[in-house]
């Protein structure tokens, strides 16, 4: 009985993690696109100014806030993929303690 409950709880936790992975990956993708576009605008801004086309003044603000958003969410992304990241670095996972 106990093992069934534990199994059910484990499945619920895994489901939640899958949902979290989805949200984190999609958010990170959107933020990556926005940061990239605003970054390009800031890079070519001085060039555009020479032909009297000015970058809107909100762009640096958007770039900063969205960039920090991406940095924050990437922390969760790292936590979700920590074991994979460790294996890429050649760190072997510790063997799980066997239940008696």
């Amino acid at each position, binding site marked *: 009985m106990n093992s069934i409950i534990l199994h059910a709880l484990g499945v619920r936790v895994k489901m939640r993690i899958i949902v979290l992975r989805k949200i984190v990956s999609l958010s990170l993708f959107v933020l990556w696109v926005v940061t990239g576009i605003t970054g390009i605008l800031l890079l070519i801004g001085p060039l555009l100014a020479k032909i009297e086309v000015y970058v809107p003044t909100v762009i640096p603000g958007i770039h900063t806030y969205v960039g920090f958003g991406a940095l924050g969410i990437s922390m969760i992304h790292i936590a*979700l993929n920590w074991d994979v990241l460790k294996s890429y670095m050649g760190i072997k996972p510790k063997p799980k303690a066997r239940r008696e």
Partner: protein
Amino acid sequence: MMRARIVIAIVLCIVIVLLPVITNILENYVTSTPRQYTQPSTTTFIASGGEVRFTGCGESHEGADTLIVCPSEIFVSEAGIIVRVNITVKFKHAQPCPYSDWEISVGTPSNAEIVNESKTELVDPYTAVKYFYIRIQGNGTVTVVYEYGSGCPYGAEEGVAVKYYVVESVSSVALEQTTSLTESTTSAYKVFEGIPNVSLESKSLQINGTSIEVRGSWVCNGEELKWRDVLTELSQLPPPTKVVVEAVYEEGVWKATKIEFNNTTCVRGEG
């Protein structure tokens, strides 16, 4: 283990996301010390044998920053009157910015002469100020230009034209008052010449009917004197001795800044 890791990551995420917001709030808090701005209204005063009238400020806000020049129109009843013009630049972004070679310049005036031009001073990360004195000889215009730093993506140039006129009756000129912000009151400056009538009680001297205040400490030919000593010396001059007084018009009164008499030059000190 996994859950603990995710909880720590979420906390870190919240902290990082809030970091620019917190920085912004702190920056606003630090720079929110109330600044004393004066509203430059239309000002009229009688100068020695002449009259001067100012309007409010001219503004240019083509790009991200704002150039404010006060006054935007000057009316004088006689040529030769010197007027102070204040320039303020309000930056959208805190200085120093990556495009920091911005510049405030005063063009060549027509029918007038720039007698003194201050250096540009950054009073806070968002405000730069500069002023100049202009001796008006006839009707004309002087242009003040603020050039954005080279490569700045938020603008190229802001410009304000200050117009000045020599008119017979200044008081009859109808002025359209504009309001804006400026750091200090606009003032005029004039040289008075004549036989002084000294009054120690009112700490002033009168030349051709105009009262000029003499206050604070003075340096006369290298010697430090108080206002009382200067006025006493002036009162003891044998008549008819002419004196030349340079005075600035501030807070509704003429204030002496330099007095010349009998090969003696007195300049007002800091105190």
